[in-house]
Every structure is written in structure tokens, then in C-alpha cells.
């Protein structure tokens, strides 16, 4: 049993090597497919993490008039927390605001100095509201505009990142759509290509297969090499795709990082090495073997 597996595997490797161009062409297409799929994976994952990042930064800040009491603010906070679309409400007191302001401007002595000259605390207390779903900010702001406490409010600061979010949302949706269709397309092409490679192998080696039968080879012994051939396609495709992916990630990282500082594609590559490798290997081998099996079912009559 083990002997047969070893022999048929060796046979598959020999076929693979001696098939020359056909093998190279087949593996190339498989590499391309796996590469496209993994690029899609990297891009969506990165876009998703950027989205999360930005979404976390989006919020509505409600600044209250200077004379509004802390108790009123607490009531407003409770009211907002009761509102469905709201995920969290954070209270920032005047003192807290001043401290934050000083911290943010620690490197600007002129601003700090002028703050001292004014004396007292010119900053306003505020509530920072976060929505669970970034598309719900409109509903929250409508709610605030119609609320009883509207008169206590000095100003509302919202929607600063709203446009970015909307754009990102649509970009990610587009990427997912394109990626999925490309993925399916390339998976189908790979399947077709491995199917074709094995079909051609079977077809051009029809006589060889007949000879093998004459010499007493069992079906199993004749079929296994074709299945292993599919496995080899998958493994080779994965190895090279991973390699090319690494090179391209290395190449684009400086550009991407300068545009989006929070991203590090190389790090992403290594953090997700297992998923990338495993996923591609599974898919590659799956496509290779399925392609072989279909070809054998159709062309290797027993």
C-alpha cells in the first residue's frame, strides 16, 4: 500500500517533469488564480481593519453651554444611552477637556501661554456619542435636533469623518464584489486548466495507459499518478503564489504605508502566513484534484 503510494507519486512527479510546458502552463494559471485570490484577501482584510479603525474615531460631540449643570448633562447622557442606535456615550467634563487640550498642545507654548492669560477654563463640557453602526449617525443627529435639551447645547460637532466612512464603505463593498467575482472566475479557470492538463495527458498517453494495463497495472496504479499530478499542481501553485505575494507585498508596503499609516502589509503577511498558506494549499490542491478527477471520469474509461 505504502509502496504503491510512493511509486504512483514518483510516477506523478516524473509525468509532471516530463510533461514540460504543459505542466508549466498549468501551474502558471493556478499561481495566477491563487495569487489573485490572496491579493483580494489581503486587500479586503486591510480595508476592513482600516474601516474599523476609522469607525472607532467617528463620533458626535455635543458641547453644552457653560452654565449647564452636570446633572442636566447626566440626564441627557441617560436619554442618549436609551436611544437604540447609540453604542456608547462618554462624558468629558470641562476639567477633562482642559487637560486634554493642554496635552494635545504641549509642544505649542504660545497656545498654552494665551490660555493662561485668558484665565479660568474657557472649554465646554461635552458628551461624545458613538453609534454602533456608522450609517446610523443621521438618525442620532435627528434625534438630538428634536430633543428637549436642544436649547442647552452650544454646538454639535459631527460628521467630520462621515464622508470618509461613506466612501470607505462603498470602496470595501466594491472590492468585495470584484474580489468575489474574480475569485470565482479564476477558480473556474484553474479547474478548467487542470482538467485540461490531465485530459491532454490522458489523451496523448492513451496508448501508454493501454500498455500499462497490458503489463498488469491495476486501475488504482494507473489513476493515482493523475490524482497526485493534481496535488503537485496545487502545491506548486501555492508555493509560487506565496512567494510572489511576499515579493509584491514587500514592494507596495512603503507606498501603502505612506498613504495609510496604520497599515503594515508585510506584518499582515506574516501574521496571516498560516491562513494564506493553508487556504491556498487547500484550494490549490482541491482544484487540482477535482480537475484530475473530472478528466479521469470523462476520459479514463475503465
Amino acid at each position: 500500500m505504502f509502496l504503491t503510494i510512493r511509486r504512483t507519486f514518483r510516477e506523478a512527479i516524473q509525468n509532471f517533469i516530463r510533461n514540460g510546458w504543459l505542466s508549466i502552463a498549468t501551474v502558471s494559471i493556478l499561481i495566477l488564480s491563487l495569487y489573485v485570490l490572496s491579493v483580494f484577501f489581503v486587500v479586503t482584510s486591510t480595508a476592513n481593519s482600516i474601516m474599523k479603525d476609522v469607525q472607532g474615531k467617528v463620533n458626535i460631540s455635543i458641547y453644552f453651554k457653560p452654565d449647564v449643570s452636570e446633572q442636566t448633562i447626566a440626564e441627557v447622557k441617560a436619554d442618549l444611552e436609551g436611544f437604540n442606535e447609540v453604542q456608547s456615550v462618554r462624558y468629558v467634563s470641562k476639567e477633562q477637556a482642559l487637560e486634554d487640550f493642554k496635552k494635545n498642545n504641549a509642544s505649542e507654548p504660545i497656545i498654552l501661554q494665551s490660555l493662561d492669560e485668558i484665565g479660568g477654563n474657557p472649554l465646554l463640557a461635552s458628551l461624545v456619542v458613538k453609534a454602533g453602526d456608522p450609517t446610523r449617525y443621521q438618525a442620532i443627529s435627528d434625534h438630538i435636533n428634536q430633543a428637549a435639551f436642544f436649547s442647552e447645547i452650544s454646538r454639535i460637532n459631527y460628521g467630520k469623518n462621515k464622508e470618509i466612512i461613506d466612501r470607505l464603505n462603498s470602496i470595501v463593498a466594491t472590492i468585495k464584489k470584484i474580489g468575489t467575482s474574480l475569485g470565482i472566475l479564476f477558480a473556474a479557470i484553474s479547474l478548467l486548466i487542470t482538467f485540461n492538463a490531465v485530459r491532454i495527458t490522458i489523451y496523448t498517453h492513451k496508448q501508454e495507459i493501454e500498455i500499462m494495463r497490458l503489463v498488469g497495472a491495476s486501475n488504482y496504479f494507473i489513476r493515482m499518478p493523475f490524482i497526485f499530478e493534481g496535488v503537485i499542481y496545487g502545491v506548486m501553485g501555492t508555493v509560487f503564489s506565496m512567494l510572489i505575494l511576499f515579493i509584491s507585498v514587500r514592494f507596495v508596503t512603503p507606498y501603502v504605508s505612506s498613504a495609510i499609516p496604520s497599515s503594515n502589509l508585510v506584518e499582515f503577511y506574516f501574521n496571516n502566513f498560516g491562513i494564506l498558506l493553508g487556504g491556498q494549499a487547500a484550494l490549490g490542491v482541491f482544484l487540482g484534484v477535482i480537475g484530475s478527477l473530472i478528466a479521469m471520469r470523462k476520459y479514463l474509461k475503465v
Partner: protein
Amino acid sequence: MIKFDSVSKVYKGDFPALEDINLEIHEGEFVSVVGQSGSGKSTLLKLIYAEEMATSGEVYFNSSLLNNLSRRKLPYHRRNIGMIFQDFKLLPRKTVFENVAYALEVAGIPDEEIQENVQQILDIVSMGEKMKKYPNQLSGGEQQKVAIARALVHAPMVIIADEPTGNLDPVTSLEIVQLLMRINELGTTVVLASHDKDIVDKVNRRVLVLDNGKIIVDCAKGKYKAS
């Protein structure tokens, strides 16, 4: 060892290629099957190695019936037989050594044994030197020697040779047939189909003459007799 019991073979919708064949071949025999083209020589051999099944009658090999041999058992049956053809039927993408070794690999013989046996058998057919060559790098005679080595390497009970000298010049043909005679002397049964008079006369053993699918002559020790 091989027995045909009123065997007929009709290819799809055609007139019979073989008709009412009764025949027994014993161990150690060297049987030459002769007859005109289309007389059914190849068909007779194909029934023995179960490439074709009898339309009626029974074919026995080692007293087991071949008529309803299952696809699964076919490889095991083939491993009892060594086959030699006019067109050599070597695997073109395998070297001489690999071609011969393949017959042992399919039977699950261990590697060390394969190494040894293949080497030995190639030396016997004096092809040891060209072990690493591919079939297309060999002459016809050399290819046929490799095919014989492959047919012999697993020590089969019977060698079936269908026009083994059909593509070879007279001198090489003689060499091949002498090789077959030596194999037979060592105890292996040989069934040879040929329409080469010189070859059959050289063998000078049992001759079967087929004509239109019927055995018209079966003599224990004889020469080629064209019908």
C-alpha cells in the same frame, strides 16, 4: 494450462473472427500460430490475455474461466503472462530500465528485488549497457529486446508474442526468435503468432494454422504451411 472449449468470437455485428476453436496448450510448449492476415491469430491471443472475451464457448487459463473475468481481477491475470508485440509497446517517456521495472512495480515487488532482477534480465537480452536510454533512442531490434526483457522479468508462466519480428530485418528476427527459444527451453510456455515462414521453420515446434477463424492444421512438430 490454456484451454479453448468450442470458442467463437464475433466482433460487433461482423462475421466470426474465430469459430469453434478447440485447443489445449500445455506447460512448456512452444506453439506457433500461423495463417493469413485476418485469419484470427491476434484474436486468439487476445482471448488468452483477456483483452477480448469469447462470444461463445469457454477459455480457461490455469483452469480458471476467463469469460467473465472481472475488471478488478484482470491485472492479476495479466501478471501471469508476458506479452510481446510487433510495435514493441514500450512506454516512450520511460527509460529502458524503467520500462522493465514497471512490470514489477505494478505487482508491488520491493525495490531491491526490482533493481537486481531488471539488471539481470537486461543483461540476458544484452541491453544492460543501454539501460538509461529512452525507447526512441534505440533500434527496432533493441526495442524488441527490451520488450522481451519486460515480458520476462516477472517470470510469467506464458509468453505471448504477436508478430514480434514483424518490424525487424531477417537477422534481427532470428536473434529475437532464438531468444524466445531459449526462454522456452528454461520452461516458459511460448505462444507465437507469425506469418514469417523462416521464423516458424526455425522454431520447428507445434504449429497451428488458422484460416478464416478456424484451425485447419494442428501438428505437434512442423513447419510453416501456408494454406
